[in-house]
């Protein structure tokens, strides 16, 4: 095990190198590009034995990734924002065809207006595609999650693609110390990929991507739902196994000082680091505040959230996205199944800083709520 200071993009690329995918089709887009560049250098230097395809668009990136995956090899691609929007059609096809693809999404706002900075709108726009979506908090978790993502995706009870979501710039371009596992330990944790269900091979011909009429379509979609349900246990088991092997365990959610908390802040991604610091400050002042970080956004861990917040009186949900007309996605997902007084705070869109003061304001507003859905830090004059 070595320790190195690196960005989350480099830590994702490092994890990919350790996972040894055979085909990597990628197209550049800010702030994902340095993942692709780092992988290109690994291949150029002989540190990674993979076919690197410099495709002409993200639509083709996902198409080539899916084609390669269905030919029975481990694959990787990465994208962001507009790139993910362009991929959209094939993102759905990848889940429908049950391809165990791993993709990094450097979370970035969606145009218009054009904006290269961070929020979660891109990933949220793909939440119903059948992909497992895991949001990470820091560079170490980005590396660890990328390795775990292969093990989850390739589990035969799952066979679904996994999107590793990391905050654009805040994580992708910020350096942190990261522990890099040894190759032999990774090889033990993640053996070479053996396709179990379907793959293109002249020795055993089969047709993939057939069209299905109303007699079959519903059942085939329901199989995705079943696999998504089964993936919850697999994510938890893989997180435990990773913890035993590498000393860092991960679950569907992370709780921070929630046991006796009166107000629990709920959010995803890198902002949770700031929230933990604010929680500590408020705890020092005697306030019973906690944080629930949602790691697995799809599948959505309703039961785990319900259990974690059962003693709290209120939830303050921070959404770095908006579903126009109904508020933030995280808020609406929680409200749909968790019976708890909850308030939504939409903030951090298009890269606007969420400061400790913002979090304090959210806590204050939760104590004295006016309405369900609140946009924080809105300027009156701009």
């Amino acid at each position, binding site marked *: 095990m070595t320790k190195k200071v690196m960005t989350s993009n480099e830590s994702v690329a490092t994890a990919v190198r350790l996972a040894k995918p055979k085909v990597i089709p990628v197209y550049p887009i800010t702030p994902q590009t340095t993942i692709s560049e780092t992988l290109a250098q690994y291949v150029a230097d002989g540190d990674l034995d993979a076919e690197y395809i410099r*495709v002409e668009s993200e639509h083709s990136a996902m*198409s080539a990734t899916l084609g390669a995956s269905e030919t029975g090899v481990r694959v990787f691609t990465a994208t962001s924002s507009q790139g993910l929007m362009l991929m959209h059609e094939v993102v759905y096809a990848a889940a429908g065809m049950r391809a165990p693809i791993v993709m990094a999404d450097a979370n970035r706002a969606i145009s218009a207006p054009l904006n290269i900075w961070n929020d979660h709108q891109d990933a949220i726009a793909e939440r119903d595609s059948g992909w497992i979506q895991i949001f990470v908090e820091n560079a170490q978790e980005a590396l660890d999650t990328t390795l775990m993502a292969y093990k989850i995706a390739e589990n035969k009870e799952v066979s679904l693609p996994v999107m590793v979501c990391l905050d654009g710039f805040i994580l992708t371009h910020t350096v942190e110390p990261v522990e890099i596992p040894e190759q032999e330990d990774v090889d033990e944790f993640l053996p070479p990929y053996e396709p179990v269900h379907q793959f293109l091979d002249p020795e055993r*011909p089969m*047709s993939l*991507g057939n069209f299905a009429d109303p007699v079959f379509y519903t059942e*085939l979609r329901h199989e995705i739902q079943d696999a998504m349900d089964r993936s919850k246990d697999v994510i938890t088991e893989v997180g435990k196994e990773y913890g035993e092997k590498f000393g860092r365990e991960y679950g569907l959610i992370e709780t921070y000082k929630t046991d006796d908390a009166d107000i629990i802040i709920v959010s995803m991604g890198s902002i949770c680091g700031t929230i933990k610091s604010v929680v500590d400050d408020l705890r020092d002042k005697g306030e019973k505040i906690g944080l629930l970080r949602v790691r697995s956004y799809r599948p959505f861990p309703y039961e785990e959230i319900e259990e974690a917040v059962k003693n709290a009186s209120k939830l303050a949900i921070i959404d770095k996205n908006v579903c126009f007309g109904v508020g933030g996605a995280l808020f609406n997902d929680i409200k749909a199944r968790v019976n708890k007084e909850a308030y939504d705070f939409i903030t951090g869109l298009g890269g606007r800083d969420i400061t400790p003061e913002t979090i304090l304001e959210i806590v204050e507003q939760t104590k004295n709520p006016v309405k369900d859905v609140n946009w924080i830090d809105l300027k009156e004059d701009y």
Partner: protein
Amino acid sequence: MEVPEIELLAPGHRGCAGCGASIGVRLALKVLGKNTVAISATGCLEVMTTPFPESAWEIPFIHVAFENSAAVASGVERALKAQGKEDVNVVAFGGDGGTVDIGLQALSGAMERGHNMLYICYDNEAYMNTGIQRSGATPYGASTTTSPAGNQSFGKTETKKNMPLIMAAHGIPYVATASIAYPEDYMKKVKKAAEVDGPAYIHLHQPCTTGWGFDPSQTIDIGRKAVESGAWSLYEIDHGEFKVTYRPQKKIPVEDYLSTQKRFRHLKQEQIDQIQQYVDANCEELGI
């Protein structure tokens, strides 16, 4: 030329009687053989051959979407290479809509990257799967459901996109045109294309009984009339070398080709003369 007896596109698929696309695929697979992976764009071919849980394909087959068969094939080709299976043929099929319109970018990218694959465009000159809409490959004067003939219109007002030359401009080792009505010429080209190291493109003209409006028994006959009139030409560009592979002994008037099909039935003499001029100019350019 001896035609292999092997059939890798099984009978009983849902193609129309007289379907030209299925003939094109059958003939290609006879040449390519079992050690082949096929990729198809969304379209007639995919829909008629792979209704879940059935399939007419006796070789591995994959379909993903409409515009990306060349991109999917790129991934398949590199994944085979990564597994040391470079001997497997990779063939992608797209209709004219999936090739010259919506799939052009993905195809151009794949050709530029030099993947070792054969792309066959089965050109029936309109979006047939959705019900005969105009594509970039629809010829001048053809009536389609989105370029219908009417009091103020004589059908499509633009000429057919010259896709083979667009492909040739990529500098790929092999480009050819073909017709299902000239199987020997077509199959020789498929063989050459499969043997070439790098990308190959074949633009296959195939009459469509439903979309063009003719009796299913006439598919091959009308395909021949297209070539005998010069409305479609057979040539290849092998490593940059252009060669006409079939020359009609004496060209028939293009009207003899147009008059066989409902899609041209509305044309007035003036437009037929215009088409004859286009055909003559094109043949002169090709040296036919």
